[in-house]
């Protein structure tokens, strides 16, 4: 306070001495207004510093920080979702492969089952056919035998008739048959 007073009075004295020269010089070097400038600088700069450090800068810094956190969170969440999606895809592929394998198993099982059934049916049919074939063959043999017998009878009859015509004496049935048998191959 007193320092300023001294400076001010010294300046005033200097101005009186120099008169015109001093007022024509640099206004910056005129100490008259130094206290006022320092006073108002202190007031304005002080208020600005208080507002900046107490209010504005924390608000801006907070907003920037919050945004940074939010972006980091969002990125985390996105990577989490990506992981989930990848896992879901993996599960899907796995399920698809399982289903395919299962379908193939079922197809193979069905095929063997059907094959077995077909084989069984075939065997049954074969057996039946064989049976029927046997019966048919037996009948054919029987019919052959009968036919041969009838042929022989007919041959005997014919022989008898021939003999009767030739010699007018009818051989017995028995003799005719014996004769025919002796000449026929079987």
């Amino acid at each position: 306070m007193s320092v300023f007073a001294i400076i001010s009075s010294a300046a005033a004295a200097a101005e009186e001495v120099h008169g015109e020269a001093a007022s024509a010089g640099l206004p910056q070097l005129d100490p008259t207004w130094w206290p006022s400038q320092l006073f108002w600088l202190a007031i304005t700069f002080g208020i600005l510093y208080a507002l900046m450090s107490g209010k504005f800068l924390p608000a801006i810094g907070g907003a920037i920080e919050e945004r940074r956190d939010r972006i980091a969170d969002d990125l985390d969440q996105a990577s989490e979702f990506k992981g989930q999606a990848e896992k879901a895809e993996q599960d899907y592929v796995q399920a698809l492969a399982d289903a395919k394998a299962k379908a193939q198993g079922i197809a193979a099982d069905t095929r063997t089952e059907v094959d077995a059934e077909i084989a069984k049916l075939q065997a049954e049919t074969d057996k039946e056919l064989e049976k029927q074939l046997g019966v048919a063959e037996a009948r054919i043999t029987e019919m052959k035998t009968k036919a041969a017998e009838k042929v022989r009878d007919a041959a005997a009859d014919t022989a008898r008739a021939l003999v009767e015509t030739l010699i007018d004496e009818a051989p017995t049935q028995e003799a005719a048959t014996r004769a025919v048998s002796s000449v026929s191959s079987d």
Partner: protein
Amino acid sequence: MFGLRAEGPMEQFQILPIVDLHLGSIDISLTNSALWMIIGTGAICLFFLVATRRAALIPSRAQSMAEVIYEFVSDLVRDTIGAEGRKFFPYVFTLFIFILAMNLFGLLPSLPWIAHELHTFTPTSHLIVTLALAMVTITIVIVYGFYKNGLGFLRLFWPSGLPLWLMPLLCLIEVISFLSRPLSLAVRLFANMFAGHVILKLFAGFVVSLIGAGGAVMAFSIAPFLGAIAVTALEFLVAALQAYVFAVLTCIYLSDAAHAADH
């Protein structure tokens, strides 16, 4: 001939009282310098009030601008001082924005018909103001330097790893360099503002004189007029640059104080 009147280049630095105020025997009148400090500070506060009114996740235009300045100064402090520079961030930020506002508001054109007291004024074109700001910085450097390093702070003047016979000389150089810091800080800003405004005024004065001469000479007034435009553009650059330089040097000096013991 047009009633034009060019004032001398120094008149723009004249301090004029608007409201007389006294604190005891000290004259603390509200002057044009104080008025422009208040206007600058008020504008900054208004801007940041708007910018931080709703601190939103998706910033408004004003908030974006404020965040750009914030990040700019924040990066500067972190890169220069390191992690412990955080506590100086509000001071460096206030210093930067205050000087920037003072410098830029001084470049506004004055309205010609209003009183001289209300003409545009650049408080940072006065050495006492820049010196006061520089002294605040240096005071913080010294106080924090001794608080942080104790007497180890004096190692700043005692560089290591040099032959002993060089030490006294280097110590002297270091002391002188340290003492000249506040002066260079203050004079750099003051001289830039002062010289810029003088040159602007000189160019503008030439325009007025040449027009005043009348006749064919008037045509030559286009040259200083274009010069004044170019200098105005340059002065905007200088205004921002000097605010930045002041902030950078403050950071470097604070870094010295913080890391003096590591020297």
